[in-house]
């Protein structure tokens, strides 16, 4: 039993997975955290125990973290700032009827 001597073995040998949980039908999957697991079914099973034990979800997605391509923090200026003065891109000039519900 290596609970005290080598606690990080799993962390160094198992890839990291990002966990997405859908809280109810019709809503999108939301990122809720990450964990280490040896493969996808393993990650799914552990995500069930770690992230849905308080009835948080009806569906889980797991994605290996290194298959996510992320924008670089240094690109913030050219990536995001040009959008800041274009308020006409927000659909705030329309009223959405109540019956439409969640969009």
């Amino acid at each position, binding site marked *: *039993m290596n*609970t005290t001597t080598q606690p990080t073995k799993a962390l160094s040998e198992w890839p990291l997975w990002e966990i997405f949980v859908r809280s109810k039908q019709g809503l999108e999957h939301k990122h809720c955290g990450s964990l*280490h697991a040896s493969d996808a079914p393993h990650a799914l099973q552990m995500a069930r*125990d770690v992230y849905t034990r308080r009835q948080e979800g009806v569906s889980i997605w797991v994605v290996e973290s290194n298959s996510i391509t992320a924008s670089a923090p240094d690109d913030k200026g050219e990536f995001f700032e040009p959008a800041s003065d274009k308020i006409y891109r927000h659909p705030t000039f329309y009223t959405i009827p109540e019956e439409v519900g969640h969009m």
Partner: protein
Amino acid sequence: MAYLDYVLHLADSAIVLGQRNAEWCGHGPIIEEDIAMANNSLDLIGQARMLYQYAATLKNDGSTEDALAYFRDAQDFKNYTLLELPHHGALVGYAVDNRDYAVTIVRNFLYSAFMALVWEKLQASHDAHLAAIAAKSLKEVRYHLRHSHDWLVRFGDGTQESHARAQAALNHLMPYTQEFWTTSPFESSASKSGVGVDTAQLKADWEAMVRQTLQEATLAMPSTEGFVTTGKDGAHSEHLGFLLGEMQSLARAHPEGVW
């Protein structure tokens, strides 16, 4: 009630394994498994509570679920001996060793495979209350089975060490499963009245399930011969007294304490 002992047998089995598995809380091999095993224990303790509450109403003498769980002694408990064994291989009774997760997983697998069949059949119990408890417990045990099955395959088909430990755990625990198929008087009267399950009829399905998983895990099916344990009849191994001592000490030190 004729089948009070049968309900207590189901409750005692659930609480004893729940208490045993809870020993991993804070000591799991990885944090996700620590949480998974705590979830497993809480499912089992939840099942035990429903069953003890029902047993208390059957008893109808002012007993409560707490009285049944905390103020009965080892010889009154009707759980399978398999469930009270520590999380390590065979040693003399008073000796302790490090917990081995392979023992935990093998036991959970053998027992969950069995209970998945038992709860499935009990859904058709003539006792509507017991049938409802079975329906809820079935979903829980199917997940326990899936969890322990997955780990057992990973251990068996993993490294040399994980394979050896899984096989050793299997060799150690398999003979205790013989108790699943013996029929105590309270079981035969419960199954005759349509309330309980005749477990002997589940043996072929259980063996098929176990065989298939062991094959997948590249593990050998061990012999199931030898001494047949009698936990159901209240004659337990030396380990149950220690387990109950820990579980019951608080309630006995502060009877009817509320917090």
